[in-house]
């Protein structure tokens, strides 16, 4: 395999040039978002002609206005943006760290579900004990369960060479059935008209601000610098990035790509599991058998848009937090289905990948001689030897 390795990440501390590099790196994603919103507006107008029987050229303004009103133009809106962004930060990191190691974790939703069910089960068991015990125990259980679910595809890749793209998807479906079984069976409680777990009681995360601004938001934000430090300031992070950039070079340097693959996938699962715990302990306080999540795809979008960098992931997560938080009001007041967010997501991703379009429209020069980390995921797909 002769895919060119990206140049070694610069570790320099030259302030101004670093800011300039960051600005240059974020230019294409930013423009992709703008183009995506424009195309989204066109789709809204076009589909209003089909659905409502007449074209409404002002619909996009109305819709985007309602979107902002429901997300950033009020205190409650801001809080719900933060609530929506928190799991996206964690799950986005769960995908982004994988990218750094040359792994594509499509399994965030399965890891999220395992974390959620572990948190609700442990939370219910400790519902009556003090929050100081119950919350860490429930979060810890979620982290372990998520990490275990991430360990499986990592180990399969390291030991057998099975590519994580197919195995993580299969594990998503398996996770959904496992969760359904656990909630209709051993973890279920009686006395309700539908199958659900018991209330987590004192394991519920305290509300810190607004209507539902729970502790999980702070946890998500606190994880970001930890991951940044791990990736760019620790030996382990250096090894992870080296394996991602060039597995054979990493092997020659005495690193263990297989072990690093397993570790990274487990870490990804841990973060996605924490995201699941935050949703249960912070918002619903129980889990029902039909609980489902679209966080896997959201997380991929966030990680790609954030260029797999922790700061970028936070910004992208906030953007999609705004969209998710504002879309219900948009549906009510402008009549645009909330599913438009999924369409916007896809269009933005498309422009991000087909960056030639973005560069032509906005006249951005392409960087020379660099290969994006995001262009090395397919590398191991056809490889039979285990890493």
């Amino acid at each position, binding site marked *: *395999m002769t*895919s060119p390795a990206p140049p070694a990440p610069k570790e320099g501390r030259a302030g101004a040039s670093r800011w300039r590099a960051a600005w240059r790196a974020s230019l294409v994603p930013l423009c992709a978002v703008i183009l995506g919103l424009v195309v989204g507006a066109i789709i809204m107008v076009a*589909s209003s002609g*089909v*659905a409502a029987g007449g074209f409404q050229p002002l619909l996009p303004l109305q819709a985007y206005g309602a979107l902002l009103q429901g997300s950033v133009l009020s205190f409650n809106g801001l809080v719900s943006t933060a609530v929506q962004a928190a799991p996206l930060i964690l799950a986005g990191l769960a995908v982004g760290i994988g990218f750094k190691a040359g792994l*594509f974790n*499509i399994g965030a939703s399965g890891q999220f579900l395992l974390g959620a069910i572990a948190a609700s089960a442990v939370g219910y068991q400790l519902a009556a004990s003090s929050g100081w015990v119950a919350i860490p125990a429930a979060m810890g259980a979620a982290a372990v369960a998520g990490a275990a679910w991430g360990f499986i595809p990592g180990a*399969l890749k390291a*030991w*057998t*060479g*099975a*590519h994580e*793209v*197919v*195995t993580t*998807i*299969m*594990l*998503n*479906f*398996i996770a959904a*059935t*496992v969760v*359904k*079984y656990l909630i*209709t*069976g051993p973890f279920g409680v009686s006395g309700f008209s539908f199958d659900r777990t018991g209330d987590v009681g004192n394991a519920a995360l305290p509300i810190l601000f607004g209507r539902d601004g729970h502790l999980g938001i702070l946890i998500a934000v606190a994880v970001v610098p930890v991951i940044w430090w791990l990736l760019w300031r620790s030996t382990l992070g250096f090894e992870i990035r080296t394996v991602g950039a060039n597995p054979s070079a990493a092997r020659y340097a005495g690193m263990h790509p297989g072990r690093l693959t397993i570790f990274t996938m487990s870490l990804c699962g841990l973060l996605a599991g924490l995201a699941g715990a935050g949703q249960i302990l912070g918002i619903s306080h129980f889990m029902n058998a039909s609980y489902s999540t679209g966080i896997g*795809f959201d997380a*991929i*979008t966030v990680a*790609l848009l954030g260029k797999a960098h922790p700061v970028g992931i936070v910004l992208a997560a906030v953007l999609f937090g705004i969209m998710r938080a504002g879309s219900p009001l948009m549906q009510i007041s402008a009549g645009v*289905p909330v*599913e*438009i*967010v*999924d*369409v*916007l*997501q*896809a*269009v933005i*991703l*498309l422009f991000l*990948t*087909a960056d*030639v379009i973005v560069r032509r429209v906005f006249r951005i020069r392409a960087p020379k001689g660099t290969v994006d980390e*995001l*262009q*090395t*995921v*397919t*590398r191991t*797909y*056809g*490889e*039979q*030897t*285990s890493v």
Partner: protein
Amino acid sequence: MDWLYGIPVLGVLAQLVAYLVEVFPGMGPIVLGLATPIALGALCGILNERSGVVNIGIEGMMLTSAFVSFLVAGLAAGALGSQAGPVFGATLALLIGVLAGIATGVLVSLLHAWLSISIRADQIISGTIINIAALGITGYLNRLIISGNPRLGAGTFRSFSPPDFLTDIPIVGWILNMFLAKGPIAMSVIVLVIVVQVLLFRSRWGLRTRAVGEHPRAAETVGIDVIVMRYRNVLIGGVFAGLAGAFLTLESNSSFQNGMTAGRGFIALACVIFGRWTPVGAFGAALLFASSDALGIAVQLRPPRAEFGELAAIVAAIPVEIYSALPYIVTLIVLAGVVGRSTAPAAVGQPYEKESRT
């Protein structure tokens, strides 16, 4: 066979065989139906990967085609009426729906081809975008158009009923029944698999396809246009993915649900690997996965009776939900066991750049 039941371990196996023989006449035709979208998806995957392109967007291609087939057939049925024809109960609307599905498959695969061959984006990311886009756009349009029109729909193709004297033959008849008691798309799969198998290994196109996937530089040297070859194969693959989508909404179901492909596109990728990049092998793998699916259904509908001994107890002890996850679990196991021992086309996943003149 009853006398075998007492032996430990082997006895349970004998019970399982006896149980399968008992339920097979009823379950047989279901197997081909379950295998059809997977096998078509696998054909799409084979054409892509044989020419050096990874396509994990098969799932999204199927889903988009399923939606468009359903919508177009429904609209056509509204305009043209639904006069069932003599063969398979085919109506003009259904045929238009199938064509629309195929066209959609080709169109979506054109996007994949452009992103992964011309733009040279990462092919797995390109496929992922197709999956995300398909789920988002069909979900949006489903809410916008179909939810408001509950009567939209064109029905489904009818299954062929083979004559009784054939299906009554023990074992042979059951297998014939499995392949014949189906609608047109499911039955066409068998033909398509054989045709692609022969063309891939016995025709000029097949040789060129394989050359482009194994060693594009060498292929270019002898005058094969790598880019054109890859484009063509990805688009032909789109035909199969589109047909799979049409099958889902016009033959096996008569409605569209969000995310109804339920991972079949990914199971198809596992079939490609398990079948060692050959159509016949992948079809066999698709039948295996479909059988595991059918077994799950059979166990839930007609659990083994008490006279099957321990088997009945084992089946009863495993929670029902696990059976519905059976195809996914089997995929995982097969992939882990087999992937190291089957060889992918050498250039799979590598974007091709023409020899530069620097």
